[in-house]
């Protein structure tokens, strides 16, 4: 039995209107399903309900706005189905229902008072970055992993419908990763036996994340034996693990905030250890590439999750003033906030000169192939490789950023 406050009971009874009532019903159902004793207040939300995935997305949004929905906490929008900066990716003439639906859904969530971030990496901008210990709502799978693991904020993965409901009532069930016990590492993945070359592979975080996703099976795992990891590398682990296995939290001993030591991550409780080998990583690399090697390279997709300023700087350095081959499409997805930062640094024109297309608001692995993603695609993102194979059905080569750049410039696959 979930204990409800007077306010929560008022919403449930419909006295706040039908939208608040349905939101409260969804949150109460989630609390009952997860065995939570009561609800707890949250401080911000990053929602995926604003991503159109069919008529239900639109009907639900219309129901909310007509039914008097209001937000209780600052609420930020995840990436959309469509890009407002590059509408040609999904031409309205070819996809009239989807594009009109996606535009209307975006508009409704703006009307409800959401901050228009349209990014899967809200943590790359100050107002979308929760603090250590805050209870929040995360939805997009890499953001959930990043909030919990890298920032020490607390969230379960609230899918669409639930995420905006939580933002409306300002509460979530007290369960899972909101509790201390739920965040404790119950298994260790020891990477200290990897060879020096594996440890120096720029794609190690993506491969490690992919392995973690397939291995964790719902457990919170502490990765032990990494000397260092940048924020972008932690982002890659989070995204890879979330895509391949739905990992909502992990620790990296000595690096992430709740794992200053292995004992801190496990709360001093003895747990089993699995040793990661070079062979395991090779197997992951094999899963992420489906190309036979005979196909002509058509495109390079970067920015899954959305590219950071640091990653754009690395890209500019690797391009070194060279232009992408005319036959190759290079798409880099990022947020409006990062794009504005590129403008300030004079990098937008540098990238345009190099034939690199910056795409805002969306991601490219669910973009229709009519937009040019119709053949061999290279990516440095495990998440893109994982989803792109199934959703676009194109042959994929997973490679380092440097290999992606060299291939794009030369017009042929270089590995």
């Amino acid at each position, binding site marked *: 039995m979930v204990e409800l406050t007077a306010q929560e009971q008022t919403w449930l009874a419909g006295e706040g209107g039908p939208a608040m009532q*349905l939101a409260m*019903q*969804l949150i109460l*159902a*989630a609390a009952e*399903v*997860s*065995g939570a004793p009561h609800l707890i207040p949250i401080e911000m939300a990053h929602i*995926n*309900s604003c*991503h159109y*995935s*069919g*008529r*239900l*997305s639109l*009907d*639900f949004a219309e*129901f909310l706005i007509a039914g008097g929905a209001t937000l209780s906490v600052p609420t930020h929008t*995840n990436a959309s189905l469509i890009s407002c900066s590059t509408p040609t990716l999904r031409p309205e003439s070819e996809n009239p229902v989807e594009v009109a639906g996606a535009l209307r859904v975006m508009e409704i969530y703006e009307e409800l008072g959401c901050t228009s971030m349209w990014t899967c990496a809200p943590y790359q901008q100050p107002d979308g970055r929760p603090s250590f210990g805050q209870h929040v709502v995360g*939805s*997009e*799978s890499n953001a*959930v992993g990043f909030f919990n693991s890298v920032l020490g904020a607390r969230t*379960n*993965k*609230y*899918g*669409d*419908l*639930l*995420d905006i*409901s939580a933002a409306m009532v300002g509460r979530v*069930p007290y369960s899972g990763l909101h509790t201390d016990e739920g965040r404790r590492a119950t298994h260790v993945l020891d990477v200290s036996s990897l060879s020096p070359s594996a440890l120096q592979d720029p794609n190690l975080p993506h491969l490690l994340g992919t392995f973690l996703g397939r291995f964790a099976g*719902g457990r919170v795992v502490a990765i032990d034996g990494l000397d260092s990891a940048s924020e972008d590398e932690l982002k890659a682990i989070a995204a890879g693990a*979330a*895509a391949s*296995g*739905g990992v909502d939290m992990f620790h990296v001993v000595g690096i992430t905030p709740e794992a200053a030591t292995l004992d801190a991550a496990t709360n001093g409780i003895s747990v089993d250890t699995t040793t990661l080998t070079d062979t395991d990583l090779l197997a992951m690399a094999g*899963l992420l590439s489906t190309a036979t090697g005979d196909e002509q390279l058509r495109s390079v997709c970067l920015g899954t999750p959305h590219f950071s300023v640091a990653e754009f700087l690395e890209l500019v350095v690797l391009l070194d003033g060279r232009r992408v081959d005319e036959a190759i499409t290079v798409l880099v997805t990022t947020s409006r906030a990062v794009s504005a930062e590129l403008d300030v640094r004079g990098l937008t024109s540098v990238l345009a000169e190099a034939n690199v297309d910056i795409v805002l608001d969306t991601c490219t692995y*669910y973009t229709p192939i009519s937009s040019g993603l119709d053949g061999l695609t290279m990516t440095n993102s495990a998440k893109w490789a*994982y*989803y792109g*194979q*199934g*959703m676009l059905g194109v042959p994929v080569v997973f490679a380092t950023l440097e290999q992606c750049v060299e291939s794009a410039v030369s017009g042929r696959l270089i590995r």
Partner: protein
Amino acid sequence: MILIPDGTWLIPGPIDGASEFVRLDEPLSFWGGFDAATGTIIDRSHPQHGQSLAGKLVAMPGSKGSSGTPGVLGEAIRRGTGPSALIITKADINLVAGALTAAALYDSTCPILLVTQAAFDNLSEVSNET
């Protein structure tokens, strides 16, 4: 037909044990892993890739991956391309949210029954001929 075991109703039944039965060996991300237009599994790494779930009684461990699962499950229930009922082993808030919303907006139901791993493993077809 399937003998429906005891469990906890996350979305109230009844479930018709005579429905066509499908068992998924691994969790599924409905968004990105399932096409609500056709009702089939499109995740190439899923053991049941290509399987249709439309109108089927589906036993599955739970959902995984993308946060778009509630919306896509709800959309499939709306279109009639979704499962007729789910039997799951993980208390899965995202599947429940999709089914509840479809019920609220369209009055279309998809009962969800939570069962133990042992009951899940024992699910099997029995003859209904007398």
